[in-house]
């Protein structure tokens, strides 16, 4: 479990791909050196500009949000779905962002003054076929997920970094999750400093279908230099040798996205529960009181007739509600409708959908370019630097922008704010594709574009 990502070198790519994991020796050299050296070079040019307060016109909307800064992140503005805030020992507030795809690994931005964000470090991935889509942070330790484009590629797994000196992230350990049938780690959750919950493949896991490779895994990282797997769970029927039959596939090819884990949220209010999005299987509430043997308490699946890809499950504990998101993954709204759902969880074994957050009309967005529909929401991450609300849901909807909903009346969510910026320069789809959102305890909203737009910083004005 201690092998590190392979050194970034074209010559090593084929060699590495033949192996099940990167060589520890090469990685030990590469990881600590690569990160700090890359940072100053890539962080020097940062395009920061503040646009006009009101972006008029049907395509661009700034409604009850106030855009205070925009940073294209030194030209590498294609961002994933990992966002976390750290307050460094010197008092600076650092926003850590995962990139959607290679060549960049992660970027740190000093947002102490949210009107003047400043990139302070930007690191590279060792391989072009990798992506570090997800990251989380507890204290000064950050966990970063590594996924590969294809099964069998390396390195794939997760890496822990010491970011006590934000300009100089130091690798603590790399945990290998590569395998003949694994694409590594797509998403991870690390909020208690003790366990990393993740959607990951494994070398010993052979799925019944190649798209079902990532399942729910729990690693104990109390000794961060030696993470140890303590439990795992997969949907019955998705692993070779299961007693259950494989689940019937969703419509191929457009809607067949895999019976695999996505978000693995665990909160201190219920450390014995994992709120698990399972893509084409819907969502599960898991009993993880015994981490060695996670057990599903309930499952809710909206598809078919909906179009699958359940992404995030956010519990609102004191209201007995769940907020469940789909992810739109097809362009031009081909998989519409992708929604944010509210579920009645008064009976933990029988979740009941009671409403959805209203989206703008599909015909106004379907031809704008790229995806349209739900994706990430602000997840009330258990951190002192995260805003928490059980009355407002804020989510990203790709070309539908950023939208906030008042869910005080759970039966009638009401949109209260929207931000749809113009297409970022060089966007391959010609439209904004807002991908993820995080709100800090100062009520500053950070949202990122999936391709080129980088980081948008806003205030909530509602």
């Amino acid at each position, binding site marked *: 479990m201690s092998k590190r990502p392979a050194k970034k070198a074209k010559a090593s790519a084929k060699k590495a791909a033949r192996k099940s994991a990167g060589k520890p020796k090469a990685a030990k050299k590469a990881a600590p050196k690569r990160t700090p050296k890359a940072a100053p070079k890539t962080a020097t040019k940062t395009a920061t500009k503040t646009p006009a307060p*009101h972006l*008029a*016109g*049907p*395509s*661009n*909307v700034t*409604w*009850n949000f106030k855009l205070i800064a925009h940073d294209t992140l030194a030209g590498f503005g294609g961002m994933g779905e990992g966002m976390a805030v750290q307050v460094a020992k010197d008092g600076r507030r650092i926003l850590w962002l995962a990139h959607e795809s290679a060549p960049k690994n992660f970027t740190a931005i000093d947002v102490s003054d949210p009107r003047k964000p400043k990139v302070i470090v930007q690191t590279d991935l060792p391989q072009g076929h990798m992506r570090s889509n997800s990251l989380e942070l507890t204290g000064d330790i950050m966990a970063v997920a590594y996924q590969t484009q294809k099964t069998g590629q390396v390195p794939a797994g997760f890496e822990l970094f010491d970011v006590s000196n934000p300009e100089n992230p130091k690798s603590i350990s790399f945990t290998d999750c590569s395998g003949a049938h694994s694409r590594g780690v797509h998403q991870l959750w690390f909020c208690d400093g003790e366990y990393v919950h993740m959607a990951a493949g494994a070398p010993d896991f052979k799925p019944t279908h190649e798209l079902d490779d990532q399942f729910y895994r729990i690693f104990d990282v109390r000794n961060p230099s030696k993470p140890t797997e303590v439990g795992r769970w997969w949907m019955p029927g998705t692993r070779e040798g299961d007693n259950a039959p494989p689940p019937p596939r969703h419509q191929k090819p457009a809607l067949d996205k895999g019976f695999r884990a996505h978000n693995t949220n665990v909160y201190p209010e219920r450390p014995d529960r994992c709120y698990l999005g399972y893509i084409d299987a819907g969502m599960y509430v898991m009993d993880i009181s015994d981490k060695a043997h996670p057990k599903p308490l309930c499952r809710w699946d909206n598809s078919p007739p909906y179009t699958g890809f359940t992404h995030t499950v956010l519990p*609102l504990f*004191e*209201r*007995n*509600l769940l907020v469940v998101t789909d992810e739109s993954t097809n362009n031009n709204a081909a998989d519409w409708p992708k929604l944010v759902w509210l579920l*009645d969880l*008064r009976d933990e074994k029988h979740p009941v959908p009671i409403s959805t957050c209203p989206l*703008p*009309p599909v*015909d*106004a*967005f379907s031809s704008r370019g790229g995806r349209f529909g739900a994706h990430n929401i602000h997840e009330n991450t258990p951190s002192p630097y995260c805003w928490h*609300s*059980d*009355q*407002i849901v804020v989510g990203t909807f790709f070309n539908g922008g950023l939208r906030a909903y*008042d869910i*005080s*009346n*759970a*039966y009638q969510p*009401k949109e*209260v*704010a*929207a931000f749809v910026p113009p297409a970022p320069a060089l966007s391959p789809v010609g439209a904004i594709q807002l991908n993820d959102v995080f709100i800090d305890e100062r009520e500053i909203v950070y949202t990122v574009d999936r391709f080129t737009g980088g980081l948008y910083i806003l205030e909530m*004005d*509602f």
Partner: protein
Amino acid sequence: MQELFPSPAAGRFGRRQKRERGARIPVTVVTGFLGAGKTTLVKHFLATPEGAGTAVLINEFGEAGIDDALLRDSTEKTVLLGNGCLCCNFRSDLQVALHRLVVDRERGVIPHFGRVLIETSGLADPSPILTTFATDRALGGELFVEAVIAVIAAADGVKTVEKFAEARRQVMLADRIVISKTDIADEEAADTLTTRLRDLNPRARVIAADYGRLDPAWIADAASARDGAAFLAEAAEVEHTDGVKSFTLTEDTPLAWEPFARAMETLIALRGADLLRAKGLLNVAGCRGPVVVQFVQHIAHPPVELAAWPDADRKSRIVFITRDIGEREVRDLLAAVRGLAKA
């Protein structure tokens, strides 16, 4: 049904709002008698940065005097202006026109306007317009009247308010009053008018505008602490012509909500037609922030609890504009219901 999923972070009246309008679209109502200069004022406002993204509703295009060159297509009901603004006429039904605007905005077929400005016809009584926004069933869930602005010409303003009850009503119900055309009136006329306006509506802010030019904040700003101060400036009951009175009730100790609400229900049931407008900021027992209440004739706006008090003053204050209902009668009603509730 909402009771099934209460949020401990919510107050008695739901989510605490940062401001009274919450997330609703702000509406400014511009009233004024014929020839007062409403259109000039509106046109100047639309050309300012603060006026960008405004949807203007008028009775007739001709009346608004919008330049034909700006009209995209004069046969359309909604036309685009410069500065991200748009204009819509409502010959008969304001509610239908507003509903269509909100829906078209949602559909993205018109610019995503951030403000609605309604220019009333010269003879309009603002009260029915205000009731349009009072309930969710109408448009109160989407739109919020932030200010009623009365425009009155300096030269003949005094005569106008003497002669026409509608003009007096416009002044009495206004939050802000603009004296227009001061450039073509003598100073004495303007002073006389100012005195008369203060007599008719002592709580409104009054400002003069030359050539229709006015600080756009006067139109675009939400009801501010300055407006609140004006509320309190009126210490005693003022009786106007037509039996219209205005007065302010204040209370130093926190109010119990139930007796207050029941007393207002009684007042509305018995004399709703004569309750022209009432608006207040209440210190309600058990509420963290101030509660904004508003009544227009038979309709009570849903109360809104604000997240924080605007200043250190924790007094409840509510302004009434009534027809033939005196301060003492309202005060006695509130006290009687409160007494019964205690018993």
